[in-house]
């Protein structure tokens, strides 16, 4: 399964990836619509959050609409089914609720952020 890997030794927390993501997926500059989030956690600590296609995808069972599936393309949100209830975001902090509250935002490894990152901190891994 491929996933987006963040190299923590390289990332500086500039969040250029967040804006690149929102432009690629939503056509706007809005970091609150990004599927990758780099938060500041303390004076010099960052927190790096993006779906890593984990082995135990609790989001799938949490979703009452069966809108998150795991198939040959990986773990992903079926947007026709998602109603934005936010149950998945309650069980995992690597999925985000859109600011309008209408859908869950999950990385689908499109790679738009990879070329935007000035530190080469991002890559797709198997």
């Amino acid at each position, binding site marked *: 399964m491929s996933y987006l890997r963040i190299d923590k030794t390289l990332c500086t927390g500039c969040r250029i990836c967040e804006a690149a993501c929102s432009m690629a997926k939503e056509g706007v*500059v809005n970091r609150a619509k990004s599927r990758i989030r780099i938060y500041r956690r303390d004076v*010099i600590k960052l927190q790096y959050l993006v779906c890593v296609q984990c082995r135990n995808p609790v989001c799938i069972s949490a979703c009452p609409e069966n809108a998150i599936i795991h198939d040959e393309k990986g773990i992903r949100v079926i947007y026709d089914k998602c109603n934005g209830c936010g149950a998945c975001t309650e069980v995992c902090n690597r999925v985000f609720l859109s600011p309008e509250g209408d859908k869950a935002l999950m990385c689908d490894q499109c790679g738009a952020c990879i070329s935007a990152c*000035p530190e080469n901190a991002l890559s797709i891994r198997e």
Partner: protein
Amino acid sequence: MARYHTLLRINLDSQSYKQEEIPQEYEKKFLGGKGIGTAYLLKEIKQGIDPLGPLNKFIISTAPLNGTTAPASSRIEIVTKSPLTGIYLDCNSGGHFAEELKATGNDVVIFEGVSGKPVVIYIHNNKVSFIDASNLWGMHIYETENKVRQMLGEPGVRVMSIGPAGENLVRFASISNDYSRNAARGGSGAVLGSKKIKAIAVRGTRDIPIADLKNFIKAVKKANKIIFDNPWVAEQRQYGTPRSVAPVNMNGLMPVNNFTEGQLPSVNSIDEKAFENLTVQRLSCGECPVACAKGYGKGKIELEGPEYETIGLFGPNLGILDPDLIAEFNYYCNEYGLDTISAGSLLGAVLATGKAGKEGSGKKRYVVLKLLRDITFRKGIGNILAEGLKSAGRELGISYFIPQVKGMGIPAYDPRCSEGTALVYMTADRGACHLRSWPLGRELAGVWDADDTDGRVKFVKEQQDEKAAEESIIVCQFAYGIGLLNDILPEMVSISTGENWTLKKMRLAGERIWNLSRIFNLREGITRDDDYLPEKFAKEGIKKGPLKGKVMSKSKQDYMLDKYYEFRGWSKNGAPLESTLKRLEIEDLI
């Protein structure tokens, strides 16, 4: 576009708020950021009001490029009347606050009045909450930010806060955001303290309006190329501002022992390599590909920095060459919320004149830490120092030794080093400031003949205008250089706003801003007499190094002021002429 045209006015007396439309004239004439903030300050602050009283206002101003994907565009401007100098103050800070505030849909926020009790203001899009902060009052800055984040439970929130120095109205108290990014100069932290605002938290989830996104993306690519093609930037990226330590010392303008000697035999222990070895995490402001911030961490002493100014003023200026000790002083300034430049230049004079009393002869580390604590909590001599550089100089009888202009502490470049540098400090709108223009590099490179004073003066005036425009856009000079060096900034601003900006128009906006701030200062009683360096720099030569014996004579300063006023279209007393205001189309605003 790239603007919401919206001002958020927050009244602390009544805990109410409303949104207003920003006059189009302001956007057209003053760009944004520093410019629009200055226009509001001049309009809304009455002459002679107490900067720490209820009639002062605290203005946070964003600019067209904030929140967009323009590189290095996450700096925020604060404009207010300074409790340190009693005149115009603007200061700015990096981090991620600017892009978050912008995404709330407010271009400018004005805080007025005084809260009855400590308060955290939370701006979430167009909603403002007033949260009781009695339990946070007294906390240091890092803990405050952590507590506010916990309280709001929103990981994307950005926090600007004050520490005990701001609460205790220390006149050079700073404001911090993202833990250790500071809008430090001139005491804006005390203004928040006087309003009983412990912190301002912001969370914005609105789309950033960009008029022509497709072409904006192209312009951003171009900007990135310009930035990465600049070899100066590559070095900034690797070493950050500590890279200045060695050349400043080599050229003999290091402030050593309260601006007496210009050079130390060696600064190897505190140069860029020394601090590179101490970096535990590289950090970046929002949207910045330069990422010059160096995360320092040893035990609880954590910070982004130290930056050059702090190194110079808490290092050689106090006779200290231990990088960990400088980081520790920086840490306490951050935690208490103190401006390291004014604190460092003030302490330099206090130590050099033996005014720290009996304790002054103890170990430096102990003495400095105690003075910082006493200033913050206004104990003993600290209470005198907390009133600012000019006042402390008078009280302690050491005015001659205090490095300040208009009450603002002098940054870490000896002003006797060059005519241009002296003029920059003399004429900066907020008092001694090194960020308004930077002629020194050109002076050292021999761009002007030795006797070409006029060339230097003209350059300072023009770059001041450009820098004011840059701070109204707002981008960081470490990525783009100081001022407006090519068309990329007008291009990005035009494409994102849908307005028509050229270099010429931006320079004009910058010149307007310099005239507005001067008029504000004249109204507060500033005269030509306030535009000089302290007497010491005219009388006493630098004691060591290649600039040994160099002074900045009164007659030289006089000549430069005459020329400077002439280039600005100001009278011999430094007041804008009617014809100048007319030419700049700002006569109605005054």
